[in-house]
């Protein structure tokens, strides 16, 4: 550790660089016209450096309690104070790592988008800029800007490179999530204006937290504002019944878009619930606790139940995301330190696993020409390596012990059980456990029908080839990480141990 800390360069402004590099990457990618390989290499270069920098940041802050922030003056007028406040703690550090990692994987994986590849990779880098900003921002104005900025490139990715129903799906995605963001904006206004108490409107997280600690937010206020903010975040997560944009958007998006959507974008919602709702409005959280638990259980069960009915492999994976994000909310809703930590763990785990799943779906769709489960069958014969990856991903997702998904769901369930013991009502655990069976069911059933058994005769299998090198590299790396963190979960728990005390001490 001494050696490493002596290596790191403290004077390097890593935090702003994490925002600037993706933007620069987007510009450079866009400028290289009509050269597929070069744009992809440019994207890999920029996202690789970004990942390296975020790892460096992790090392840099591990010795300092996982907290780092910087502030640059921006807007200061008689009424307004909005500064470029950026920072990380354990939770946002993990999300930054996940973003950087998945964008790199996506850049390595994507080569099939032959048309307008410069715009394609530029949009991926622009999405990364937005996502990084959301996880780094420490100022509500900045936070909201990045929250929305992430939306636009994703809209173009779906609309420009998506499947047959992309026009409908992209528009629905854009409007649905934008409406939710605007409602969340009212919540932000109320927070900041009440915190300012007639003075200068200071949009920094710090100022609002201070107001919360000083007791400026009454219980009624907290309940109302929690509701407004929670709605905005719940649509993003998404929770049933606000999930209908997700299956459309995920199914129609290109593989890279789906990976970023499910892997990192959904986490914006749960991240914000913890960062804003829980940290600033603890009394509101207590008032909404039961609602959150019910919504979480509904999402978990409904998502899993819907999966069974799906014929399209990608749509099934999309619905499984709803189910798994339900676990995140379940962890958060326990309002205990351990529950929140494992909720974040589940966010990270789901980010890795779902990326594997969407990449697998992308390969099936590309190589065989269809993702329809009834048309597939016996893929393992022609595509053994692919079948291996698919099995690994599916098993990780259904929570096989030894892989990362198990640790996360185990932890969330443990926290939930602990909470139920506390209130002396045990039966709701049944719903959570039932979903585990459903999940195991639909995943194994889908595997059985698509990769095992006799080779299908319904589609032409003569030209089908196995995973190629770039796909193999991306999938292999992700699978290795899934196994690594499954065996050594403390690598992540150490980062998460350092969280705002408010969060660890709620209730």
């Amino acid at each position, binding site marked *: 550790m001494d050696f490493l800390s002596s290596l790191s360069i403290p004077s390097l402004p890593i935090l702003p660089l994490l925002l600037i590099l993706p933007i620069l990457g987007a510009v450079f990618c866009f400028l290289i016209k009509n050269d597929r390989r070069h744009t992809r290499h440019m994207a890999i270069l920029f996202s690789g450096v970004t990942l390296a920098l975020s790892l460096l940041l992790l090392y840099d802050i591990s010795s300092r309690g996982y907290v780092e922030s910087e502030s640059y003056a921006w*807007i200061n*007028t008689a009424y307004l104070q909005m500064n470029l406040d950026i920072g990380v703690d354990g939770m946002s550090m993990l999300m930054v790592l996940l973003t950087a990692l998945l964008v790199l994987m996506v850049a390595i994986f994507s080569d099939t988008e032959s048309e307008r590849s410069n715009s394609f990779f530029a949009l991926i880098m622009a999405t990364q800029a937005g996502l990084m900003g959301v996880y780094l921002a420490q100022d509500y104005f900045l936070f*909201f*800007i990045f929250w929305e*900025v992430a*939306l636009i490139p994703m809209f173009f990715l779906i*609309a420009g490179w998506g499947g047959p129903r992309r026009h409908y799906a992209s*528009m629905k995605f854009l409007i649905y999530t*934008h409406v939710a963001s605007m409602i969340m904006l009212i919540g932000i206004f109320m927070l900041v204006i009440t915190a300012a108490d007639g003075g200068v409107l200071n949009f920094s997280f710090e100022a609002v937290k201070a107001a919360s600690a000083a007791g400026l937010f009454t219980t009624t206020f907290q309940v109302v504002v929690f509701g407004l903010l929670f709605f905005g975040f719940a649509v993003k997560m998404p929770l049933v019944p606000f999930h209908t944009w997700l299956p459309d958007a995920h199914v129609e998006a290109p593989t890279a878009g789906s990976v970023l959507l499910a892997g990192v974008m959904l986490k914006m919602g749960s991240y914000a619930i913890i960062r804003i709702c829980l940290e600033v409005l603890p009394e509101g959280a207590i008032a909404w606790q039961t609602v959150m638990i019910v919504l979480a259980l509904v999402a978990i069960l409904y998502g899993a139940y819907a999966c069974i009915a799906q014929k399209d492999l990608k749509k099934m994976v999309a619905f499984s995301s709803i189910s798994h994000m339900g676990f995140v909310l379940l962890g958060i809703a326990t309002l205990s330190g351990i529950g929140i930590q494992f909720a974040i763990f589940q966010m990270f785990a789901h980010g890795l696993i779902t990326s594997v799943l969407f990449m697998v779906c992308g390969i099936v769709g590309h190589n065989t020409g269809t993702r329809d489960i009834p048309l597939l069958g016996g893929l393992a014969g022609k595509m053994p390596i692919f079948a291996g990856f698919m099995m690994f991903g599916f098993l990780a997702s259904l929570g096989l012990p030894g892989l990362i998904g198990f640790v996360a769901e185990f932890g969330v369930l443990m926290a939930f059980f602990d909470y139920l013991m506390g209130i002396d009502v045990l039966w709701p655990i049944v719903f959570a456990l039932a979903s585990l069976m459903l999940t195991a069911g639909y995943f194994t059933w889908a595997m059985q029908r698509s990769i095992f058994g006799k080779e299908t005769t319904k589609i032409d299998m003569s030209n089908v080839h196995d995973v190629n090198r770039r796909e193999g590299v991306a999938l292999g790396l992700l699978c290795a990480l899934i196994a690594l963190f499954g065996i050594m979960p403390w690598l992540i728990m150490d980062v998460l141990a350092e969280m705002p005390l408010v969060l660890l001490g709620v209730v």
Partner: protein
Amino acid sequence: MMDLFGLDLTIINDVVKELMPIMPQVILIIAAIIVPVFGYGKRKGITAWLSLAAVTSALALTIFLIYDSYSGSFLNLFEFNEFTGFMMLIFMLVLFLVVLISLTESENRKHSGEYFSLLFVATIGMTFVAGATDLITLFVGIELASISSYALVAFRKNDPRSAEAAVKFLIIGGVSTAISLYGMSLLYGMTGTTELAAVADYLAAGDFTWVYIVAVIMLIAGFGFKLALVPFHAWAPDVYEGAPTPVATFLAAGSNKMGFIIFFKIFLIAFVAAQTVGGVPELQWLFAILAGVTMTVGNIIAITQTSIKRMLAYSSIAQAGYVLIVLAVATEYILAGGLFHMMTHVFMKGGAFIVVAALCARGIGEYISDYKGLAKRAPLVAAAMGLFMFSLAGIPPLAGFASKFILFSGAVTAEGTWIWLVALAVINSALSLYYYARVVKAMFVDKGATTEKIRVPHSFKFAIAICAVATVAMGLYLGPIMEICEAAAAAFFAMV
């Protein structure tokens, strides 16, 4: 004593000092007289360049006066302060952009001298409204601007659409003027004065009477037509669609704002002056309802439009609804936000109209379907149009987002009276993204019939570039412009 050829030069100094508050207008007045003369010469192009020179110097002088924090009044009728300066800046900017995009066409157009002259006269009228301290000045300014606008809309005499639009505009404008003038006369009858500040003093002391109520209704209805508030909005889409596109730009980006100043002056100063003694809740509620209806109806009808100009017209109506929130809440902060939104609206709406005008000049139709595949044919223009659309929809980090952010946050007060209005505005703004994004999708995602490149005239390119830069810059760095808006709002409330 300085003298030249026996003339006492100090007299010139005195005249300049006397005229200083209206100096930018004086430049425009001189230009409005001189430019048509050149229009009868052989080289018609010179009228355009002369006009550009005049408006540039007027704009520069306005900026200088604002920078200098100049204030002064002319004959107790016109007061130049930070608020007047800010509004004059908006009008001069619009005029500058419109003259700029009229450069290329003026070469081969008949009567280009009169065209520029009318533009100047209309702008002079608007600037006088901005600085008016008296109902008479206010009315003269409005009429100066309106009558010139009727003629401008009819400028393509041989085009039946232009003529029809002008007739509609003229009749509705005339009726609304009559109604509002009647309202003003009632106000004068009640108070015995035409000075706004004196009217305010009188009303603050008095009670509600039936005359008062009739006057308010007359004024709101009369000026509501000018501002195209729902339900007085039906003329706007027809006029914007029928008018020559540079004139539509002028009306949408400029005239629109004059309506707001009238509302601010009459209602914020004369009626809500009593704010300090408890406000006029009935009036504020009336405006809140008007704002809510205007933005909702504007947005909903805009969704169904297939013509870009009509869509932009309805979007202007919706944007007017947002700014109307200022009258409901009536605080200094929200007025600053409203002024900021008016400023950003110049560039995003003006920019959008200029793009439409530029494409019209190159034979592209006015329907959204005509814009398919535009990103291939004119990538930079399409990118700018995308910026304007997203900015109008309020997507960060663009100017339209920043100004809506300030405007809507201003309505969230500690008492929470207007929270329903904020919610309505925010949802409206979110839904409006649908019709703006449709244009963006047509340009960038849909495939067009041809990929033939479009060459946009240089003057248009320059104007579009100005708007695009302003749209991005005011969004990313809103500090300086917000400070000007705050100063203007403070100066406005100091007039009470």
